[in-house]
Structures are given as C-alpha cells and as structure tokens.
C-alpha cells in the first residue's frame, strides 16, 4: 500500500459489493419468484436486473425475491420500491424490459408506465 488512493479504491470497490448489507433506506427491486414467476422466466428477469445494475455501477439498489404476488397471469412480476416506500409494480417482464426499468426508473427516476400493472390491465 503506497498511497491512500489505493486504499480508497479498494474501499469503494468492496463497498459496492457489500452495500446489500446496509439497512439504510434505499431503492429495492423485488422480483416475484414463486413457481409461477419462475415458470414465466422470472429468473432471467432477475439476472438482467442484477447485471444491468452492475454494469451501471449502481450499488444502492438491492434486488431481492419474493413469493407469489398474486397476479400469476401477469408474471414475471417485479416491484420497485423507492426510498420513500412508494411502490411501482411492473408486469409481464423480460430481460430487455428489466434493463429499461433500470435505465429509466432507477437511474432517471421516471416510471416506465407502459410496463406497469396499470397499463397491462387497461
């Protein structure tokens, strides 16, 4: 270790990996991963969320799973909780849509209305 910069680099890199363990309020993506969701391809969706967040170096958003959300016909389903607890439910997802949600909702704070349950039900 010859400089503080090196130390800071290690810190920032590792912090990203560890941010999942923080209990501070932050955005969460919860993917429905019950049998119905998995059958509809939820796993791909989840991986896409994780991958896209990684690519963009976003480490204050956690991705987690939940059970059946109750709208099996609209699976794969994911819910995005923002820091204030506001919830947006996205349905009929695939990997491509997941990446767009990251780009628009997570990065730019703009709900991707066309994928929401509201739009699908309309």
């Amino acid at each position, binding site marked *: *270790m*010859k*400089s*503080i910069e090196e*130390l800071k680099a*290690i*810190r920032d*890199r*590792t*912090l*990203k*990996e*560890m941010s*999942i*363990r923080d*209990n501070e309020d932050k955005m*969460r993506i*919860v*993917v*429905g*991963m*019950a049998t119905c969701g998995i059958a509809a391809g939820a796993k791909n969706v*989840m*991986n896409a969320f*994780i991958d896209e*967040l*990684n690519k963009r170096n976003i*480490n204050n958003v*956690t*991705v*987690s*799973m*939940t*059970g059946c959300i109750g709208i099996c016909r609209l699976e794969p389903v994911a819910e995005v909780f923002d820091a204030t607890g506001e919830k947006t439910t996205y349905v009929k997802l695939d990997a491509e849509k997941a990446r767009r949600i990251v780009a628009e909702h997570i990065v730019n704070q703009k709900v991707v209305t066309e994928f929401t349950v509201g739009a699908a039900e309309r």
Partner: protein
Amino acid sequence: MVYRSHVLICNGTGCTASKVPEIMARLEKALAEKGLEKEVKIVKTGCFGLCEKGPIMVVYPEGATYCHVAPDDIEEIVNEHLVKGRIVKRLLLGDKDVEDVAKSLDNVGFFNRQVRIALRNCGVINPEVIDEYIARDGYMALAKALTEMTPQQVIDEIKKSGLRGRGGGGFPTGMKWQFAANQVSDQKYVCCNADEGDPGAFMDRSILEGDPHSVIEAMAIAGYAIGANQGYIYVRAEYPIAVQRLQIAISQAREYGLLGKNIFGTDFSFDLDIRLGAGAFVCGEETALMTSIEGHRGEPRTRPPFPAVKGLWGKPTILNNVETYANIPVILLKGADWFNTIGTEKSKGTKVFAIGGKINNTGLVEIPMGMTLREVIYDIGGGIPKGKKFKAAQTGGPSGGCIPASHIDVPIDYDNLLELGSMMGSGGMIIMDEDNCMVDIAKFFLEFTVDESCGKCPPCRIGTKRMYEILDRITSGKGEEGDIEKLELLAENIKQSALCGLGQTAPNPVLSTIRYFRDEYEAHVKEHRCPAGVCRALLKYFIIPDKCKGCSLCSKKCPVGAISGEIKKPYVIDQNKCIKCGVCMDTCKFAAIEKK
C-alpha cells in the same frame, strides 16, 4: 462481484461450537444444488453478540435474522427464502411483527439500545477478508495518522477523546502513550493484551474473531505515536479461532503493505507478531504478560519501573487491551470531539459487556458509558428469567465486586463502579437473582483467584487460600464467631501488601459482598442458615405432612435410604442420614418436599 443476496453466518467461538461448520457445509451444498452460488454469497462473520440465540444467520437484503439455526433448517431456508423469497418465520429472532422483517436486527431491544464502536464490524464483515474491513473505512485512520498527523497530534487526539483502558484499570490511554513517547530509546514496543481471562468475559475474543484488523490498525497507529516498530499480540492459546483470524489478518495486512516497511510510502515501518499464552490468568497482568512474552514463567514484577519506561526486554512499551485498540481508529477518523459526546464526564465512549447469569439475553453488548444497570438488565438483557427478583450484578470478574439491587439506577462508568466497591474490569457482568447466595458467589470468585494466583507473593498465594478456607467453613455450616472480621482483616492486608493488581484486588468479591450482604454472612455464621437456599450443608429437606400422599417414590429414589414411612401416610426424612442431594424434591409429584 455483486450478489443478490448475502447470507451472514456467525463464526464466533460460541456459534462455531453449535455446529456452524456443519451448517456452512450444508448451506454451500444446498446453494450448489440449486445453482445459486453466483447469486448468493456466504459471508463468515464474527460474533453478533446475541450468543444466547446462536447460531445466528442474517440474510440480506431483507435483513432477516434467523436464530438457533440447526443444520436441518438449511434446506428450508434455501428453498423458501433464497429460492422463493419467503422468509422462514419460525426461525426469526424475537416475536415482533414478522411482516416487517427488514432491519429486524436493529429493531430488537437487544440491539437498538447499543452503541457499537468497538464492535462496529462484528457480525457485519467477513473478518478473513481485508477488503471488507477497508470498505468500512478500515486503515483510513492509519493513513490519516501517517500522512496528516504528527505522532504528538495522534497522542493529543487520543488524550482529548478521554479514552480509558478497557482492560480493567481504566488508565487514560493517551497518557500511557505519552509516557512511552517521551522515553528516548533505540527500541520501543507496542503490545496488545488479549489474554482475556475473567470468567464469562469474551469481548476481546469476539473482536479478534470478528474484526481483527481494527486491532492491527490501532497497534500500528500506537506504534507511530510512540515511536515503536514492533508489536506483539499476546493471546491465549485457548482462543484458536481468534488466533487463526489474527494470523490471516496479519498476513493480509502485510501483503497490502499495511504492515511492514514504509507504510503508505512514509518512513514509518511496523510489524506484528502473535505470542500465545498458556492460559494463566495472571498473564493478563501487564508485567506478567511481558515476562511471559520474554519466555519466562508469567509472573508480575514490582512497579516502578512502569512498562512505559522499562517494559518488554527493558524497553519502553505500551500495553493496551483489545477493546481499547478497537476504539482507536474510529476516534481518529471521527475525532475526539465526536467520541466525547458519548459517555459520562469522566468515562467517555462505550463499554462492551458480556452479560451472563440470570438474564434472558445472555451475550455481548456495547453500551454507552453512563447507561444504568437497570437499562442493561431490562431493556437490553430482556430481564431476569422466570420473573425472579434481581439481587445483584457482579462486574469486574475476580477483581471486581457486586452491585446490589439498591444501586440498580447508578450510571455505569469507571468511577461509579469503583465507588460501589466493584470495578469495570474487562467487562464481565454476571446477573444474580434471589436464588443466588452471596457467600457462595464470593467463594466462587475467590476459588478462581486461589487457583490462578501466580504464587509469587505470600499475601495472594497464602492469604487468598486462607480466606477461601474460611468461606468454605462458613458455607459448610462450620463458621465461627469472628470469621467475618478475620475475612475483613485478611482482605484489607492482601489489598495493601500483594505484589500486583490481581493480588490487590483479589479480596474485592468478598469485601463487596460483606459490604452489601453482611446479614447473609451473619446468617451463615451465627444461625448456620443459607437464606438463598444454596449452601447444601446448611440446608435441610423436610416432607410437608399435609401434602405427602405417602406414595413412597422419594423413599425409593433416596440414594442413602434416609426416607422412611408407611404407604399412604406421610413419610419422614432422617436428617442424620440425609446427604442433601435433592433427589427427593425433584422426584416428588406433589411438591410435598421443601428445603430450608
């Protein structure tokens, strides 16, 4: 690598002893079977502190805290929680609203009243991965000290923080460093006392197991402050996990150049070695510890000269305890002013206690100085089991004393504890309820000192033995008029004459119990009665005729044939034959046997 989930498993000694290795193996296997190795990360951590509920497992991002996890629970945790995202409620900590499991660890009373400085990383990081320590600002304090501060500024900051030694005496750490820094010598040493030996105390072990780098970093800072380039960590050989993690941590720090030559490109070089103690309690005394490091029989020597002047191999040496060191990096990073906001006027910061005995949440807690005993027992400790009455708390181990219920609202700090006839000690806290006999407790602690006296000076070697013999006599019903006074006389002279701090404080458990519970002593001596019903020789078992159904079961179970009678009529215990084993009482289905 980012994972969607982190599973933190306590790898402290307590949980390890409860099948954690098997749990880890099962978990790895189950994750592999489900193909989740790339999504779920297993993180070995140090102690969470809630040892009573171990083995502990925390699953993030939900923060679901599972307790009493058994190897057989793993399949369910993986299938339900990690695959389907459904939290396994039956394993959750506490009885709180299980719907709101996120951040549950922080929400339970056990944790939310704590202020975790020394334990900041315990249960949070993987102690075997230096990067995780660095991620939590590890080694930043060392970097700051080396590049932005002079040694004197470091010492001044520590002085200003008011940090006092967490190993027992509470000597101001900054002052100790200043003494050593003032010495002119070709060689100085920094030592860490990890020879934790008080019965029931294990905070140092937990820090070494859960956050070894915090100690390493602090020792390097200390080395910089006093002008030492070599350190020794004296740790007891009975702490194999701590030793192993320390070894890993030291080699990682060396690899990163955080130990070794020209740290952070400065002129400062520092390295560390581990020395194993063979388990003598006395080696926790600083001069004995150094004598042991030098390769001799671990025995204290007279002071002065003090270690800061003539320590290890006759060179200026500072010796601090593990918990003291763990505070140092935080103080340098956040500043003495921040540290000063925590605690009382003369006792700054926090103190880690190992609470045990008659308490619901046994375990490790870090509380701000000044918290009352009541808060510790009821808010954090969850109260006394079975709704029994709190009688006293023993702090300071064999050097400390008892704080009676009447002082339950005294804020805990160094000076208050001393005034009460106890001491902070290394932080053991044993809670006693109405069923504890204080004479017996004093005897227990004294027996420990008798065994662990190094034997160098007669007051400790013989004096504590004679005190023990008197206590043994008292608790066996052979107490004589004048025994209590004899105990006091011996105690006073041992305090005055013994060579080292351990000898001088050895009588404390007896003196403090006599001070607060003299009536109990007198009951033993004068009435040959043990009010708490503990001292077997003083007890008598009786059959209550009204309750006895004459079933004869007790008579059959009695190992010495002391119970006789006629079927369906009340039985009688022959007091001359009775050996007071209590089997009859345990056997009786009608609660017809009492002891008094």
